[in-house]
């Protein structure tokens, strides 16, 4: 086991550089360290000017997504030992505008997420006196996988369509729409259909499948999107029939 490992970190300081550059740091190698630990070591001991996002360091907050050796990953889940012998290249999440160093702007995703109305929509709220909504294990199973999304945007970083067409609504937004469409308590599928069937909605997706491959929580957004294509297409067929 080596004593140290080299990290090649993308730096971008708009006041100094027109384009990102790579700066090299030598960090101690510990077998239980992840890339996030290495970045924190750099910030604490080597270069306090390095900027990056992180929070829970255990894979549930979705803050620390970055490109590690060309693949989008949660840096809190990317072990240094898996990337030996190094050097390990750490860059900001691809296909997003870089604000500074490893920090990208996520406004686009936030806007798209809100667009799909990721909350339970009811035509009429049940009064409290009627008690809670009940769900069988099978009903829970219908949407549970899609509810695991931590909004880390790694799927957007893997999606070439999003890279080529930044207006594409994207994997996570559609998966989250499905999380609510498939929830037996929700009655908002019709409202979401309008938004998802737009030009930049589901029909831009060509089922590359990278989003599902890189998702750290096994949400399977590609599956969610294809299933929704079928739902949407069947809905369209129904609108053709006389009884509508």
């Amino acid at each position: 086991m080596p004593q140290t490992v080299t990290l090649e970190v993308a730096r971008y300081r708009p006041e100094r550089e027109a384009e990102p550059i790579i700066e090299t740091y030598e960090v101690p190698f510990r077998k239980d360290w992840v890339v996030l630990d290495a970045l924190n070591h750099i910030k604490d001991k080597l270069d306090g000017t390095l900027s990056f996002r992180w929070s829970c360091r255990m894979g549930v907050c979705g803050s620390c997504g970055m490109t590690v050796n060309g693949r989008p990953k949660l840096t809190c889940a990317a072990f240094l030992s898996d990337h030996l012998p190094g050097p390990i290249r750490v860059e900001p999440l691809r296909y997003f505008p870089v604000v500074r160093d490893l920090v990208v702007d996520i406004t686009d995703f936030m806007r798209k997420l809100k667009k799909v109305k990721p909350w339970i929509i009811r035509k009429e709220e049940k009064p409290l006196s009627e008690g809670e909504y009940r769900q069988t294990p099978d009903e829970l199973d219908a949407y549970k996988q899609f509810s695991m999304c931590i909004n880390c945007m790694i799927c957007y970083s893997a999606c070439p369509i999003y890279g080529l067409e930044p207006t594409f609504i994207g994997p996570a937004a559609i998966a989250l729409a499905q999380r609510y469409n498939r929830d037996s308590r929700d009655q908002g599928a019709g409202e979401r259909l309008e938004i998802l069937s737009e030009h930049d909605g589901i029909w831009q997706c060509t089922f590359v499948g990278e989003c599902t491959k890189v998702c750290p929580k096994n949400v399977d957004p590609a599956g969610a999107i294809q299933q929704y294509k079928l739902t949407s297409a069947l809905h369209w067929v129904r609108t053709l029939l006389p009884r509508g």
Partner: protein
Amino acid sequence: MTRPLTPLLWFLFSVGGTLAALLFPVHLFLTGLAFPLGWLEAPSYAALLGLLKQPLTRLYLFVLIALPLFHWAHRFRYTLYDGLQLKHLTELIAVLCYGTALAGSAMAAYTLWRIPY
């Protein structure tokens, strides 16, 4: 304008793709390789006309040609759009792709109509 068409085009793509996946390998292997290379005995002209006496055979062949052509049209259109980033030509590409598929389907229908019983 293409918005209401998209689900239909996607259906054609899906059914065409499924037909191609299930049936093209065997047809291609026989017609393109096994028969010309003499590995297996090709059906005679008379035998094929015999099969074509059935309207069901003609319907099968129409579907087998037309729908995979629409599968190609839809898929190829997106490949050109994304792969070669030909966004400024998007309408032209769509018309050329679906137009070709339509033309091929029409020709298939006409030919199947005209084969002597």
